[in-house]
């Protein structure tokens, strides 16, 4: 039995202290001790990316990181994206462009896209697909996720945004 140790890190800007065995995976600490249950578990072979969180400025799969490795780290989960009740551009984009259905991959998708858009604020479709390849989705077929990331990229760059969904636009025109 590995001796338990205390680990301190910043979680969405707040300092947290947890006591863990060395073998505890970060995803389990986040979900079971910190009660941040947005990050999900979709596999045990590090493929799906549902557990993706932002970790010291990197997108990491928190199922493949030990909590003891997070000592002093800056961790951000999907729960930290919205600010003051206002959705982050990515959350808005995923909603407007129908980039989710069951929602199980969504927290990981959002956190990966969050880092991607800081590294590359104006990615091409091919770049979005390549740099989001560590996140699997069973529902969407990815098309609308690409549109959602493009929507958020435009908004974050300060450009005009509109949903690519034709019915929404027609509806809006009708309302005027």
């Amino acid at each position: 039995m590995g001796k338990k140790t205390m680990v301190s890190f910043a979680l969405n800007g707040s300092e947290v202290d947890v006591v863990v065995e060395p073998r505890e995976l970060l995803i389990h600490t986040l979900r079971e001790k910190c009660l941040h249950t947005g990050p999900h578990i979709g596999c045990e072979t590090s493929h799906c990316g549902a557990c993706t969180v932002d970790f010291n400025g990197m997108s990491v799969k928190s199922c493949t990181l030990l909590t003891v490795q997070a000592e002093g780290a800056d961790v951000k989960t999907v729960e930290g994206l919205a600010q003051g009740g206002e959705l982050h551009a990515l959350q808005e984009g995923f909603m407007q462009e129908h980039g989710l259905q069951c929602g199980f991959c969504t927290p990981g998708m959002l956190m990966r896209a969050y880092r991607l858009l800081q590294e590359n604020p104006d990615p091409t479709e091919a770049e979005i697909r390549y740099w989001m390849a560590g996140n699997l989705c069973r529902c969407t077929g990815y098309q609308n996720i690409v549109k959602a990331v493009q929507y958020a990229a435009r908004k974050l760059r300060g450009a005009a945004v509109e949903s690519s969904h034709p019915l929404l636009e027609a509806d809006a025109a009708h309302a005027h």
Partner: protein
Amino acid sequence: MIPRPFEYHAPQTLPEALALLGAHGDTAKLLAGGHSLLPMMKLRFAQPEHLIDLSKLAELQGIREESGVLWIGAMTTENQLIWSELLQQKCPLLVEGARQIADPQVRYRGTLGGDISHGDPGNDHPALMIALDASFVLQGAQGERVVPADGFFVGTYATLIDPTEILTGVRIPVPAAGTGYCYSKLKRKTGDFATAASAVTLRMHGGRVEDLRIALTNLGDTVIRATDAEDALRGEPFDNAHVDEAARRAMAACHPVSDLRGDEDYKRAMAGEMTRRALHTAYERSVH
């Protein structure tokens, strides 16, 4: 999903890490990016009693050029390789190879040194290192030794690294100006290990192939340097007949294992095809 219990150590310096490794011997494993080791521990294929985390060791970080030789710290991550302007300029084969490894998240953690030390024939860096004529710097309690990549990989998960040594970095002679290169990898999907892959560096002179290196990924119990295939082209004009002969010899050098990626015949044929494509692309990129 749940690893066996173990003790965790986070040394601050290389001597401290070596002392821990000496103290715990075979019961210890070095933890680098953790993207091969932790998955094996989660499936209980590996059950070390001690993990020695190398992430705090400054000695294992950095990418620099020293008198015509690139030095890359063992803890350099795959994304750091991809984003390195020095490597994009001086060693584009390594960047092209790293872009075909795993996925973005894995590349933020997985390291060059870990990919090499793991000794998995499915990993891509062993072939890239052989094609680039790299050598590895191994630090033990008694001192440092440098071993060439060609010959370092002795079997599945087996390398020349001693259990008391730590791979600190990689040395790559900066490829001569005009050297062509290619890493051609066949895989079922992004993030998969190769069904077959071929790493090539090639230099032309006076209308003939002056020198070349060909190394094959996941086509035997360890990486294969296809020396017979190299001999088919070295000193010869670069034409279809010589390239086809090199591809045939690359196929002959393989001893693939049948699995879900295909049977032996398919993998052997793909070894030839990947080699043919890598040679053609390397030639196109070379000064000739």
